[in-house]
């Protein structure tokens, strides 16, 4: 059995009086691609942000490998450095070139020498097919290219897993393919990923395991073949019938 990278146990999160996540538990194994799907506003993004504590969970525990990262005195910055995060709206640093976006974490968080950081950053930019755009600023790149830079930024830190928060939702339809292609390759290479997405094609063909979330809970979980063909819950079946 592959090693567990992330374990989430009974996670709860509320904003004011609204409970967004109502007790979620799951595990992600090494090299697994876990895809989270479900209607909008059911806490999928919040769940991702609770994993690396960009939002702090109200209750429940999260382990990264064998370290419980929800403990009060843990160095969360060090933990975050080893969990990649790819945002829906890219969030590249606007004042930095693609190269600097990718190597700033290496230099300022990992405190790596410029030369070494540059080497890694260039390599990661090539990996996402942007070897010829390293000196471009975000505003000079298309949305798809920006999102690929942000994937390279996550990869450069050599993370234990990468969290993708609807990585293609902000893209024009013709740019979605290039981002998905990069993600498919990462899955093949064995990068551990949790992907929140509405791309059912991607979920079906790439996911090892799919989580269907509705109203703050995991309604069902299983391999794509099972979930798409024989959903156990009416809600899941209804969701699929609407989007396909």
């Amino acid at each position, binding site marked *: 059995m592959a090693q567990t990278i992330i374990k989430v146990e009974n996670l709860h999160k509320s904003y004011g009086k609204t409970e967004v996540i109502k007790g979620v538990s799951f595990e992600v194994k090494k090299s697994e691609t876990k895809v989270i799907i479900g209607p909008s506003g059911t806490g999928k993004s919040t769940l991702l942000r609770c994993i*690396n504590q*960009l939002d702090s969970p109200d209750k429940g525990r999260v382990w990264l490998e064998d370290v419980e990262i929800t403990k009060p005195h843990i160095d969360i*910055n*060090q*933990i*975050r*450095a*080893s*969990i990649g*995060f790819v*945002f829906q*709206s890219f*969030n*590249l*640093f*606007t*004042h930095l070139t693609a190269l600097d976006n990718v190597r*700033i*974490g290496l230099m*300022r*968080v990992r405190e790596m020498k410029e030369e070494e950081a540059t080497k890694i950053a260039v390599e990661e930019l090539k990996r996402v097919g942007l070897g010829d755009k390293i000196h*471009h*600023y*975000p*505003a*000079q*790149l298309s949305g798809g290219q920006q999102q690929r830079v*942000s994937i390279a*930024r*996550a990869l450069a*830190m050599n993370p234990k897993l990468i969290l993708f928060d609807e990585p293609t939702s902000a893209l024009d339809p013709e740019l979605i393919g290039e981002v998905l292609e990069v993600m498919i390759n990462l899955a093949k290479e064995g990068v551990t990923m949790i992907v929140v997405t509405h791309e059912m094609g991607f979920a079906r063909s790439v996911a090892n395991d799919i989580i269907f979330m509705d109203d703050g809970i995991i309604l069902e979980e299983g391999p794509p073949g099972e979930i798409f063909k024989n959903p156990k819950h009416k809600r899941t079946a209804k969701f699929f019938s609407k989007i396909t």
Partner: protein
Amino acid sequence: MNFFWFAWSISPKLLQGSLTSLELTVLAISIGLILGIPLSLGRVYGNKIIYTVTTIYIEAFRGTPMLTQLFILYFGLPSIGIMFPPFTAAVIGLGLNSAAYQAEYFRGAIQAVKDGQMVAARSIGMTKIKAIRYIILPQMFRLVIPSWSNELILLLKASSIAYMIQVSELVSVGRQIASRNFRTFEVFLVIAFIYFVIVEVLNRILHSVERKIKIPGL
């Protein structure tokens, strides 16, 4: 003596005064910059105590006339044993005042940086301080230049109130000259022109800085 000969004849003294005005402005804007940044950070990122302290400072200096502040500093403080020479008092007074205004411009610029920038910085493991240092402030400086230029120009012109505490800046030199030959109108026309030229030069310098550090593609 016609106007131009007259202007020429008083120009050495006026240049001396201009230099003092410029020196005063540069020192005061620097103090304001050095204090303004932490003040703005306190207002944006500070806890309740820091927020309150920085807000009180800023509101106190923006809510009272600069001349009053200068008089308190120069004529008021000696009564509790603190004395500054005129030029020093003017630099401190203008600097503390400018800090309050600059802090507000900085705050506005920090808040204009998109929220996602801080979130992304934290997501790669930067501490809040590193994120501010490497991600937020570099963007803030670019955004703040237009309003900061305004502050610099206002401060240069406001530096003339140092005349009220016996600093030999441009207006003060003008008064001395005019009191000797009574050609007040001409003297102050020349002085207005000098201010105008300095303002134009500063404007151009800041414009070119703005262009130079502009983020490509934005």
